[in-house]
């Protein structure tokens, strides 16, 4: 039974630490208060997508009902108001990640498009045969495949930073890979499959120090670094200037906002050096059949009518994040991660995959004799939603010698009852298959 205080039922026993909640925000999320088959929903798939608070849903509804119009085109009041709100989200995002200017914030459709934008625009212009792109062994396919495609076009070669048995990047190996041939380093901030928090500040410092010539580092040297922030943006405070990230990519729908909108942060000097990614309306200065000139960043990279209402919803999500507090979210989730790790260790036959010292709130595991898909289907019976599969990270699965894992990922709205239900369900499934 979920208990109203959100504290752990099992807390206080010798092996399982008591869970003290920092937040109590389940009530803000309408879907989490519904019953499914007469049971409460235990939503443990926030790494795939987060649920939406009422504030975001209402902001979007209200905008459709009262103020909807196009942006950056109309001369009527509806469009002017919409444009103000639309550009206002850009300022909110810039403040959230401490960007130097809102001109460094590009609206995309999500992390995947953000990475593709850098690969195609920056990569096609600056990469040549023999150049090297460094990725980590635990990337999402979205941070592997675009670089492979660009590698095929330009002749650039991909190198991979290995991880140890806990899922921690081996920095000594990374240092060996860095050379004057390194042009781009692309790594995630938090691994979606394992939860590892990567030392991106150090990764960036080392990349900027290589003797090559992309100009990302001091003195016009160094390689540029793209950070895939899909799993970090809603779970920890991110400061792109402190990290000195060249590009930082994330998705709206993983930070309590709607689907269909994402962000690419890029340092202005880099963005200014880059050609358009897609052509269309709104990204041009002047078009003739002889010659077309382009807008400055960020609009150079935003062809066509954008997802206006989604951007508005994302603005409301940023407000919600700030109100809740990213430090409090991180503290709440970390406490739940420790509690969840302890209760899962009590499940016979369970093996945690990803045991790095620095971890985000992701619990990836296998259960002896039970395929992850069977775990997923059977947990659904108890109202528990988890992800089962390769998590779009097949090289990560290969590294750990498993075809797939089950993954419970925690959001700030989760409490101990969700993890108690998970452990109980897993024990039942283990017995069923024995």
């Amino acid at each position, binding site marked *: 039974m979920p208990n109203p205080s959100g504290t752990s039922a099992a807390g206080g026993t010798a092996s399982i630490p008591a869970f003290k909640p920092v937040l109590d925000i389940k009530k803000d999320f309408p879907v989490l208060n519904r019953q499914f088959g007469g049971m409460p929903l235990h939503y443990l798939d926030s790494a795939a997508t987060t649920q939406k608070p009422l504030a975001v849903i209402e902001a979007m509804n209200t905008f459709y009902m009262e103020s909807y119009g196009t942006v950056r085109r109309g001369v009527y009041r509806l469009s002017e108001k919409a444009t103000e709100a639309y550009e206002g989200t850009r300022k909110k995002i810039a403040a959230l990640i401490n960007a130097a200017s809102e001109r460094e914030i590009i609206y995309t459709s999500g992390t995947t498009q953000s990475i593709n934008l850098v690969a195609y625009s920056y990569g096609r212009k600056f990469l040549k045969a023999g150049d090297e792109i460094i990725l980590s062994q635990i990337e999402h396919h979205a941070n592997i495949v675009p670089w492979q495609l660009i590698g095929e076009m330009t002749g650039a070669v991909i190198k991979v930073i290995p991880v140890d048995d806990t899922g921690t990047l081996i920095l000594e190996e990374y240092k060996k890979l860095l050379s004057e041939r390194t042009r781009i380093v692309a790594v995630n901030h938090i691994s979606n499959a394992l939860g590892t928090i990567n030392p991106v500040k150090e990764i960036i410092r080392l990349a900027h120090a290589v003797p090559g010539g992309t100009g990302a580092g001091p003195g016009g040297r160094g390689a540029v670094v793209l950070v895939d922030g899909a799993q970090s943006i809603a779970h920890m405070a991110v400061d792109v200037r402190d990290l000195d990230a060249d590009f930082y990519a994330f998705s709206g729908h993983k930070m309590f906002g709607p689907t269909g909108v994402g962000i690419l942060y890029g340092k202005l000097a880099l963005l200014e050096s880059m050609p358009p990614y897609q052509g269309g309306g709104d990204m041009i200065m002047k078009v003739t059949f002889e010659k077309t000139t382009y807008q400055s960043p960020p609009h150079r990279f935003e062809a066509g009518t954008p997802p206006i209402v989604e951007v508005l919803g994302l603005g409301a999500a940023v407000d919600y994040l700030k109100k809740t507090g990213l430090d409090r979210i991180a503290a709440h989730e970390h406490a739940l991660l420790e509690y969840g790790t302890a209760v899962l260790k009590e499940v016979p036959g369970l093996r945690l995959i990803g045991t790095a010292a620095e971890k985000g709130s992701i619990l990836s595991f296998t259960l002896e004799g*039970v395929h992850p898909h069977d775990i997923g*289907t059977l947990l659904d019976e108890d109202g528990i939603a988890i992800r089962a599969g390769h998590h779009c990270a097949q090289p990560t699965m290969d590294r750990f010698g498993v075809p797939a894992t089950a993954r419970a990922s925690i959001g700030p709205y989760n409490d101990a009852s969700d993890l108690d239900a998970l452990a109980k369900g897993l024990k039942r499934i283990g017995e069923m298959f024995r």
Partner: protein
Amino acid sequence: MSRSNELYQQVILDHNKNPRNYRVIPEAELVCEGHNPLCGDHITIYVNVDATGAISDLSFQGNGCAISKASASMMTAYLKGKPIEEAKLIFSEFHDMVRGEFDPKSRENHLGKLILFEGVKEYSSRIKCASLAWHALMGALEKKQSATTEA
């Protein structure tokens, strides 16, 4: 009975744990590897056909969930000895059943105990698990080396 208990019946759990014909047929006449790109699971089917056009030996190996493994196990046990044409007919009945397009109670059919898999139709995400081995078998009979559930 709860929804998933209907799917994970004892027979299916037993075939998952002790799969029948789970072996390689050395120098099999027909071999086809079936892939489910949605989950990365794969099952290889080995077939020998005799002079009369009947399946004289049938086996499988691979990696999959309980539903795909039990389906492969029961398929091999059920189809061994049957003429290829009958196997193809059973495939189409089975495939239609798990997709919810054929109710095995509505008319006579050739599915026998394979109707255990009817419950799969309630799980749109699991239909391809149940049909993976079958797609691989059809691929093998068409002399293909690989097959996918996305065909």
